[in-house]
């Protein structure tokens, strides 16, 4: 329909809308299934297992019809089918990789070895030669590997998980740092740095935590990420045995008001508590103990390894970025108490991640801590981001007590790759970032 310069009417518009070009997905069903099979969230998913089984069964049925298999072949086929049914999910990737060529060739080749050739002359014409088979399998395997890499990358980007886990660190290390925000609070961040990069930056010797701080803290653009420009610390940081010493400048921003000092100490905790240093001492340039203006006496050292147990809440910065962070640094003596009060709103900065209407009980057992929801919790009824944050905040809270957590009475058996049937992994740190 040509558009004229007459009045544009509803009929013309409806015609255009009703004749929108058809856009189709050019991928095959097999490609889509392949990708689903490599998604950790669908591990052990019965429907997916059913989906990969069906084409194999269909293929076999089609072959049976096509070949007019003799009775003795049927029994072998049945045995093969039963064998296929028993494949665990980790074999599923291989199963789908086989769908195009492998199913036809392998099953028939398999039969070739078991069936008396003389009794099944027709079978050979459907068989693919071993060379073809190897070549095609090899091509498929390469494609599969390539596809897996792409899928892994997509999964990483699309994942709603925000914490760092051991599985993120197969070839990388973490760098913890407390970044200062507009509310004068420290937000614990966990940066992932590839081993290769650390090895290049420190070719001779494994770096100390202070060396890591001096190297990588300046590389973080705090301002661009919505934080205050805070690192590296002013003054001098140095190691003294198993202590860290901060020589503070005479005039510094860390000692203006009590909120500044608290912010400073919290950032130190978030940056160095998971390190080889037991304490941090505060000194003047002449080596005497620094006296914070809020204190009567010169400062004593601050313990970095003290077991400060927190529960985790949601912190949103002014740009809308969200972080899981300890709630006002309030400490708890038991994990039960810390988890139980996670629904309570205590101030305007930190938001509870557990909705008010979700109630639960907490039980401590030998393996860890178990949260049992009073009503079956269907995570799909929640916003997916919120549901994931709730789970991870509970995991981080338990991890703050060096405990792992299990969530009982959840409708879903897995969520964002977390196996909810079992104890969940202990996060290595909150708020995952990749070192720029």
């Amino acid at each position, binding site marked *: 329909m040509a558009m004229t310069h007459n009045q544009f009417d509803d009929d013309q518009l409806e015609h255009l809308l009703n004749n929108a*070009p058809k856009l189709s997905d050019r991928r095959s069903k097999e490609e*889509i299934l392949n990708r689903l099979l490599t*998604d950790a969230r*669908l591990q052990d998913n019965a429907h997916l297992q059913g989906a990969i089984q069906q084409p194999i069964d269909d293929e076999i049925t089609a072959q049976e019809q096509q070949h007019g298999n003799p009775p003795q072949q049927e029994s072998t086929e049945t045995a093969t089918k039963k064998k296929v049914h028993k494949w665990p999910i980790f074999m599923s990737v291989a199963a789908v990789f086989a769908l195009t060529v492998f199913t036809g060739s392998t099953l028939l080749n398999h039969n070739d070895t078991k069936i008396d050739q003389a009794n099944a002359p027709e079978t050979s014409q459907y068989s693919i030669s071993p060379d073809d088979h190897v070549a095609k399998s090899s091509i498929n395997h390469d494609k599969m590997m390539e596809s897996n890499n792409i899928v892994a990358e997509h999964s990483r980007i*699309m994942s709603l998980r925000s914490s760092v886990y051991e599985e993120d660190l197969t070839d990388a290390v973490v760098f913890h740092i407390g970044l200062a925000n507009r509310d004068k609070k420290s937000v614990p961040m966990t940066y992932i740095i590839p081993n290769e990069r650390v090895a290049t930056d420190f070719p001779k010797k494994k770096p100390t935590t202070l060396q890591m701080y001096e190297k990588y803290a300046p590389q973080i653009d705090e301002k661009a990420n919505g934080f205050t420009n805070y690192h590296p610390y002013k003054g001098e940081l140095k190691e003294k045995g198993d202590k860290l010493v901060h020589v503070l400048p005479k005039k510094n921003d860390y000692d203006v008001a009590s909120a500044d000092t608290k912010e400073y100490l919290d950032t130190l905790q978030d940056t160095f508590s998971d390190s080889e240093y037991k304490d941090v001492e505060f000194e003047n340039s002449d080596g005497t103990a620094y006296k914070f203006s809020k204190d009567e006496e010169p400062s004593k050292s601050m313990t970095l390894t003290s077991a400060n147990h927190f529960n985790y809440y949601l912190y*949103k910065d002014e740009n809308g970025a969200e972080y899981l962070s300890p709630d006002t640094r309030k400490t708890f003596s038991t994990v039960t108490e810390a988890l139980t009060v996670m629904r309570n709103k205590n101030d305007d900065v930190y938001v509870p991640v557990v909705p008010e209407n979700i109630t639960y009980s907490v039980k401590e057992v030998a393996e860890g801590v178990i949260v049992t929801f009073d009503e079956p919790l269907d995570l799909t009824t929640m916003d997916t981001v919120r549901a994931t944050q709730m789970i991870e905040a509970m995991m981080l809270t338990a991890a703050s007590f060096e405990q792992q957590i299990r969530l009982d009475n959840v409708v879903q058996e897995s969520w964002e790759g977390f196996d909810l049937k079992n104890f969940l992994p202990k996060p290595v740190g909150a708020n995952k970032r990749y070192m720029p």
Partner: protein
Amino acid sequence: MFHRLYDAYHQDVFQFLIYLVKNRTLAEDLAHEVYVRVLRSYDQFAGNSSEKTWLFAIAKNVAIDHFRKQAVRQKHSLDFFDWETEQLHSTTPSPEDVLQASDEFMQVQSALEHCTGDQKMVIIMRYFQDLSIAETAQILDWTEAKVKTTQHRAIKFLRQQLQQVREQEAKWQ
């Protein structure tokens, strides 16, 4: 189950997603997310709606989650992202298939970007996907009256937008 849903609705769901996000790779990613949610929650599907509307409702939620995350990345607060009133703005160019479409349809596509999220969603569902008012209402969890009103407003808005384009063109000639 997967094969049945795929055979019956995959291309429709994919088209719905690609018209929303206007990027083939992204539509593929979102289609993957749709299947992940479908496979994980199929046991909870109560059959209160048809499988078709259930599937489209999941696709709609996946798309909204995408736009919400995009809004967060673009430094808008989550709290203030209301898909019905915000534009579901696709920053990427139209897929190559659409680029081969008529100039008039390109103008429609462009005008759609200026609609509110609820209007864009209704136009795509009602016209591009050929879903009935009842189906659209069920997917969006709205009343049929709201679908009709939103459709009416969307058509009016699109007509005005396209009329403006036409007048601009007339000026240049």
